[in-house]
């Protein structure tokens, strides 16, 4: 009987403490947690050159990784204070909603279902993409419409998989999916001959193609079968954190519009008379205060990470995807990147 009492008491204690932990994690905002930790925990793909992949020195590089850096620069004033978690497509949502990561910057497509039913909020886009197909030259395929009866390597659990099903169904084409867990595995399967074509977002195709033993042996087909607005995602219900991530991306784009880059930002900060730039850099009207950040939040982003164009040239351009006049160029140059003013 004594043991029994002990067991029940222990059970009650565990329940109570669990409830306490629950309450605590709800009351504390992500911003406070990040500040207390001194680190932004950022979920990335980790295996996708140009977006997020470790370089020779083991440092995470890519346009997604740089978004994490920008957020760290804005919140903590130091872009190096990022801890990367590599997540598979299947793991990512649970990792975010269970607070394992503070944000996902994992080339995730914004869709209605995800936005409304996963308990997450999409912020803004750091890369606008579209889905395509890559085939081996030896097959002599010129269009995706010729792929009747083909086996197609795809990353399981992605919008890619759904777009492919829609596209082939609407065109009356039969196909057979070969679904792998990671994008690296899809490349291995494609290279090893497990499938005839590989489908993914076109930027990913370029990255995967560059990793083939012989990149010239494969071609990316001309069709773009979907819209893939990719961007960072945060947990639903923390509006302040949502806005911080959102405006960190806006700062990258606005910075480029204002002609600021990592090389000239110090000089501009000292000498500029343009009110917009002064506001951006926090020397006049501290914008950061509205977000719960320091006045120099945007300055830190540009100084330590660079503007959107700099990031693009450093990360995505080497894959062979030119920016000029593409959807990922500024709206002033015919692209789609249009960012609300910082004022």
């Amino acid at each position, binding site marked *: 009987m004594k043991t029994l009492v002990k067991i029940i008491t222990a*059970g009650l204690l565990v329940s109570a403490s669990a*409830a306490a932990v629950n309450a605590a994690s709800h009351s504390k905002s992500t911003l406070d947690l990040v500040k207390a930790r001194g680190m932004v925990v950022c979920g990335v793909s980790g295996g996708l050159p140009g977006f997020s992949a470790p370089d020779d020195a083991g440092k995470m590089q890519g346009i997604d990784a740089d978004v994490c850096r920008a957020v760290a620069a804005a919140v903590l004033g130091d872009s190096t204070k990022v801890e990367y978690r590599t997540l598979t497509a299947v793991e990512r949502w649970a990792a975010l*909603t269970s607070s394992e990561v503070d944000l996902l910057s994992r080339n995730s497509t914004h869709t209605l279902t995800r936005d409304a*039913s996963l308990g997450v909020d999409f912020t803004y886009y750091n890369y606008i993409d579209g889905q395509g197909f890559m085939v081996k030259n030896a097959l002599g395929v010129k269009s995706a419409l010729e792929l009747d009866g083909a086996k197609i*390597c795809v990353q399981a659990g992605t919008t890619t*998989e759904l777009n492919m099903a829609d596209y082939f169904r609407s065109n009356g084409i039969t196909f057979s999916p*070969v679904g792998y867990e990671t994008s690296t595995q899809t490349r291995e399967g494609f290279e090893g001959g497990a499938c*005839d074509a590989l489908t993914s977002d076109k930027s990913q195709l370029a990255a995967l193609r560059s990793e083939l033993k012989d990149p010239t042996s494969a071609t990316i087909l001309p069709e773009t079968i979907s819209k893939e607005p990719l961007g960072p995602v945060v*947990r639903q*219900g923390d509006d302040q954190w949502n806005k911080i991530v959102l405006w960190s991306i806006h700062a990258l784009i606005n910075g480029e519009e204002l002609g600021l880059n990592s090389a000239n930002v110090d000089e501009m900060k000292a000498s500029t008379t343009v009110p917009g730039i002064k506001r951006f850099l926090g020397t006049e009207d501290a914008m950061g205060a509205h977000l719960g950040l320091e006045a120099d939040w945007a300055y830190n982003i540009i100084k330590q990470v660079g503007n959107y164009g700099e990031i693009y040239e450093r990360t995505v351009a080497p894959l062979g995807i030119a920016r000029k006049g593409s959807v990922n160029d500024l709206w002033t140059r015919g692209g789609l990147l249009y960012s609300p003013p910082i004022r």
Partner: protein
Amino acid sequence: MLGVISQVLIAGALIGFLTWIYFNTVENLNQRGIPTGFGFLNQVAPFKVGFSPFLDFELGVSSYWRVFFIGVQNTIFVSILGIIAATILGFLVGIMRLSPNWIVSRTAMVYIEILRNIPLLLQILFWNFAVFLPSLPLPKASMTFLDTIFLNNRGLYIPKIIAENQTSGLIIIAFIVAAIIGTFFLRKWAKQRHDLTGKRFPVYITGFFGIIAAGFIGIVVTGFPLSLELPRLGRFNLAGGIEFPLPLFSLWFALTTYTSAFIAENVRGGIQSVAKGQTEASSALGLKRGHTLNLVVIPQAMRVIIPPTISQYLNLTKNSSLAVAVAFEELFAIWSGISLNQTGQALVIIAMTFLVYQILSIIISGGANYYNKRSQIVGR
């Protein structure tokens, strides 16, 4: 009395705890804006499932329920294949391990030690990416047997038997089932005769040909209503017929060889547990080595072999969830992987997956325990 009260209290505390977990989880999910429930199961699955040997999948029509059942079906399919092959191979290697021939027994030892000590995931990847994919030809250069069976680096293709109408198909199946039942009676009769007269009867060969003959008679009686759909080469792959995709073989081979190494050790242990006097006595009676093994040693060894082998069967079934690495569409890959990610219904999907593995494990261990009970010494 005190015992009863404490039992009731513990049960109550347990139920209370589980209820609390349930409500806490639902509450937390709601707070995070994640609706949960079983409603999504009736929705149309927006992605395609490639391999399904028995259930049909039609893109744009089939629901998530269907995806779930295909997952369960494929898990059971590969597990049954794996259990059968691993048992046969395991017995063979286990017996080889005890062979008086030095080379044979060492070969078996090397086999066991290598396969037991390499992680299964690595072995699955090895069979898929290092053995099958590079060594098998492309679809255009498929290996073929009489242009009816094809093998290439996408899989194995066999002709599909199509019954022109359902009734004649059912009649043929009835003939075959009757022959199978007949074989059971034949076995019973042969055993009785053996007990009475000591004469043996080749039951299995007779049964095998009997079943084939029955099927053939069924076809003749119904007037040849069957046609074969042969696989034929399209632009990329073979179409038509029945396809067994390559990942199935990679998974099957890896599960089989890996598990067979453990079963071989069980078999060795079981055989060694049989007193040496039994072998010597049967040799003294003039039984051949094969008969000694089959009639004297193995029946006694089974009592030791079965219990640990049951847990290997369970392991094999659960290990099939590693299939996602080679893109085989079993339960874990298409349900806990793809469906979970497309719907976000983690709670329901993970619970259903748990339940399936749980039920499969109970069925396997139940069946094997039944056999185990029958093979134990009847104590009085």
